[in-house]
């Protein structure tokens, strides 16, 4: 006001008269509403300010963590080699029992609840089959933590390799055999009759009878009316066991060696197995004929 009076004198009499009679006031209800709104606004702001760091960011953090975990798992899954992934999915105990017949493992996975084979059918097993079954028994004894039921299953899985793949419905209903004596008898027979598996010279002949079971396991799964997923698992096990842990180049080198030795039939059989195990592997020119 003083500044206004400095640059503009105004009319003090009019101003005084006006101020003397200026008594209009807003309503009390209006006053209360305005003050209440002002206090409510302050309370709302304080409520927002009191929220802790965790309360303000927890939703964002949860979303970010979920996203990071999902991406990490996806990347890890993609970078895992395809063969290793399949093995992880199927998880066959190959390292624990290397002598177990692949077809038997496939049978285990495809039909874990299938009925045990009758003793009459297991008796006329071929010598090679006994060797494989015996190796399985030895392996089962070598793994002390393997439960008896798994031992029985691995013993039963040896039967299909001996030509017993077609289990009749009657056999499925036959009573199960006691574990102890059978395992011991088979194990002793295997140790006594089967050639040493560890010798490299005998490794190829030992693998030869197992080779037909690569496709056989799948056929068995189909014949037993198993689900496509079980057949797929059986195929994966058959493939992983057909290459026997060898690399593709190593396998081809063995086939070359067989050809050089004049064992063309075995070489052709090995090549067929190779093609089944590695269908997308580019074959060298010499094997394309």
């Amino acid at each position, binding site marked *: 006001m003083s500044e206004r009076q400095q640059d503009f004198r105004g009319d003090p009499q009019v101003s005084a008269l006006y101020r003397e009679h200026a008594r209009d006031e*807003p309503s009390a209800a209006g006053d209360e509403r305005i003050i209440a709104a002002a206090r409510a606004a302050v309370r709302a702001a304080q409520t927002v300010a009191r929220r802790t760091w965790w309360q303000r960011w927890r939703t964002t953090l949860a979303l970010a963590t979920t996203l990071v975990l999902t991406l990490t798992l996806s990347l890890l899954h993609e970078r895992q080699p395809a063969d290793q992934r399949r093995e992880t999915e199927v998880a066959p105990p190959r390292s624990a029992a290397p002598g177990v017949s692949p077809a038997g493992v496939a049978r285990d996975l495809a039909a874990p609840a299938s009925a045990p084979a009758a003793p009459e059918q297991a008796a006329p097993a071929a010598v090679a089959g006994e060797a494989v079954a015996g190796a399985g028994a030895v392996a089962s004894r070598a793994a002390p933590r393997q439960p008896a039921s798994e031992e029985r299953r691995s013993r039963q899985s040896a039967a299909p390799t001996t030509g017993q793949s077609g289990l009749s419905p009657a056999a499925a209903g036959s009573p199960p055999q006691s574990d102890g004596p059978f395992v011991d008898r088979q194990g002793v027979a295997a140790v006594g009759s089967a050639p040493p598996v560890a010798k490299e010279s005998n490794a190829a002949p030992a693998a030869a009878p197992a080779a037909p079971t690569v496709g056989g396991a799948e056929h068995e799964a189909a014949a037993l009316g198993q689900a496509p997923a079980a057949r797929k698992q059986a195929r994966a096990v058959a493939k992983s066991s057909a290459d026997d842990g060898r690399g593709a180049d190593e396998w081809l080198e063995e086939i070359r060696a067989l050809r050089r030795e004049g064992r063309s039939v075995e070489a052709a059989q090995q090549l067929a197995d190779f093609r089944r195990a590695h269908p997308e592997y580019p074959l060298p020119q010499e094997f394309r004929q």
Partner: protein
Amino acid sequence: MQTDWSDERLMLAYRAGDADAFTLLYRRHRGPLYRYLVRQCGDPALADELHQEVWLKVIKGRSQYEPLARFPTWLFRIARHRLIDHYRQHARHLLAQYESTANDDADEGDELIERLPAASEEMPHVLHERHDTARRISLALDELPPLQREVFLLAEEGGLTLDEIAVATGCGRETTKSRLRYALGKLRTSLRDLL
């Protein structure tokens, strides 16, 4: 304590979360702001509504408040904008006068002031208010052209200087000075027997 604080300091305290500071600020300016509004719109009920809206704008705009000008300048500027919004909706002829004079110089403003219509003496509430001095003053103010009345009320109720009124109304300083001179002259003429 807070009663000695300036308006700007109280508003800053309210911005920081002190509700009592707002109460004190409100008590200081509720009357002048209400009288400015009721004199300008002529309707106590409407003035009460506008008064609440202006203060709600102050509450909402507290986080953006900076003491760049005096608090009354900011407050009455908000009130003036709210009045213009009201004129835009209900009295477009007054709005045209407000908008057309925004950038006028002093002479053009004076010419416009001479052409502004006075408040009608036949309005019922004006006839009823003629019985005492307060009513006489109110009538004299109602008879003023809106822009002259606005400048007078901003000076008397808001305590704004000529420069602050010029800023609040968006006019030049000389235009403001001229309007105030005319308003005081007319009031003196109307209230001569009371002075």
